[in-house]
């Protein structure tokens, strides 16, 4: 009887949240899974079950989608290394400052507050107007590139924009991790004659390694889903050279043939990738906890 009463009260507390969650997330997610097995598109009223045909087509017969997967992979790889490396470097340097520490922290984090749509348009101005101007009027001739129109350089511009927006976020996480290192540990190492590099290598770095794991997986997760930065800066161009998976899904569903069923299959593939990454993350973190 007590259990029944308890569960009834539980339901009244959980239901409002669950209702919204059910309507907009669960229904959409399971609907997406179902439609991914159909040939549903906006042009036809009826549709049929086609099994895994959409998945097979996406992975074997859709060079554009496969290219967007490969490009996203390249982007993710670059971001994991550069974003975490830069954030860690800045965190260590900023944390070593005394009076101007809050200033640098505030400054470096600021771009993270802005939408990458706004940031992307701002950088578009830099890439298409300011840099060519600087190249023309100064000795910095190498800046005269087709930053948006050339496939290789547009990859760099997307990276620059993404790093500009994202490094500050990871830096904050790394700063919190560095602050968690007991001061006594660092002091005793310094008294024992360890130099700043040795202290970092043998004490600070091992202590913040768990935060690095978090940082790497946060980057993996967010980079696989990248959309705004690419949409604002290149729109996936030139041609489809910088089209990422999320943009490919968006175009397939809303701009090209409205092949909702097919686009849903691609969306499920993206989900599986992100799901897999998280599972690996949980496994890695669990193993580390057991070792510790």
């Amino acid at each position: 009887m007590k259990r029944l009463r308890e569960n009834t009260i539980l339901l009244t507390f959980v239901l409002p949240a669950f209702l919204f969650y059910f309507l907009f997330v669960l229904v959409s997610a399971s609907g997406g899974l179902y439609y991914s097995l159909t040939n549903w598109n906006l042009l036809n009223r009826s549709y049929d079950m086609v099994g895994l045909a959409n998945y097979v087509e996406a992975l074997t017969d859709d060079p554009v989608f496969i290219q967007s997967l490969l490009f996203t992979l390249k982007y993710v790889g670059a971001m994991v290394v550069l974003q975490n490396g830069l954030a860690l470097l800045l965190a260590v340097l900023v944390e070593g400052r005394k009076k101007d520490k809050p200033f640098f922290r505030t400054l470096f984090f600021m771009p993270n507050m802005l939408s990458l749509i706004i940031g992307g348009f701002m950088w578009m101005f830099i890439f298409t107007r300011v840099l060519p101007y600087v190249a023309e009027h100064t000795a910095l001739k190498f800046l005269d590139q087709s930053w948006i129109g050339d496939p290789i350089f547009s990859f760099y511009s997307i990276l620059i924009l993404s790093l500009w927006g994202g490094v500050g976020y990871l830096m904050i996480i790394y700063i919190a991790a560095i602050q968690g290192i007991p001061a006594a540990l660092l002091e005793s190492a310094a008294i024992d004659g360890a130099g700043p590099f040795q202290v970092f290598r043998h004490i600070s770095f091992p202590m913040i390694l768990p935060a690095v794991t978090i940082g790497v997986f946060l980057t993996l997760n967010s980079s696989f889903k990248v959309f705004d930065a690419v949409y604002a800066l290149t729109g996936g161009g030139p041609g489809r050279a910088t089209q990422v998976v999320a943009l490919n899904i968006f175009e397939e569903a809303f701009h090209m043939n409205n092949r909702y069923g097919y686009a849903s299959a691609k969306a499920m593939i993206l989900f599986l990738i992100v799901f897999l990454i998280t599972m690996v993350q949980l496994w890695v973190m669990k193993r580390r906890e057991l070792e510790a």
Partner: protein
Amino acid sequence: MKKRIPLSSVLVLIILAAYGIFTLFPILMGLLNSFKTDGEILTSILSFPARPSWGNYIRAFDKTSYLASLFNTILIAAVGLSGIILFGSLAGYKLSRTPGKLSALFFSLFVFSMLIPFHSIMITLTRVSLKLHVQGSRIGLGLIYIGLGVPMAVFLFHGFVKSIPRELEEAAVIDGCGDYRIFFRIVLPLLKPIIATVAILNTLWIWNDFLLPLLMLTDSDTYTLLLSTNMLFGEYNNNDWSAILAALILAMLPVVVLYLLMQKYIINGISDGALKG
């Protein structure tokens, strides 16, 4: 003893200053050129405006229906935020305090959905919202944000409630207090720190979200700041930079002001959210 500045500290300062310039460069260039005419941008992009004028701002203010867009953004965020905080804290609290299978099932359902990328549900979500008649409506969009945002809020509240002792609630039960009264009178005030974190994370997310409003809002009267800015950008298509830059500065203004006023809370909220989430 003579004070000497070690070389390494100069090097550190140079690196930090260089990254600072990188951070500010696009914003400063945008600000500087937003006060120039298009001709002046063409001929002297790096110099201070010869005759600074507010003309671009007036044009951008007009073109983006700035006040209306700002109001729309605030309305959507307010609906989403109040639902996320109220429903999220109710659910997170009770799930944390109730043992048993049903409670664990609900909790794992909420947590599982945090793994689903938005892009994986957006196609069906547009159909669902059409069927539920929330498509095209600002309030409706706010309601969708409740659904999308509530799982993480439940997760954060659930974790926080675990750290508050039960004694107060138990004493209230003995005094004959009902469940809802206990929640609103006793528990909710104790949740203030985590409410702040949830509020900051979700405000930033909703304020800066672009794709969902793009899919949901069709009438330009209902556009958010980002959508109006995007529309203006598309219209001038990389040409009328003076107006575009002014619009960009206007669009980032509310967030930058908020950040400078509340940066301590925001940075704490962000790092709390990231490390617990």
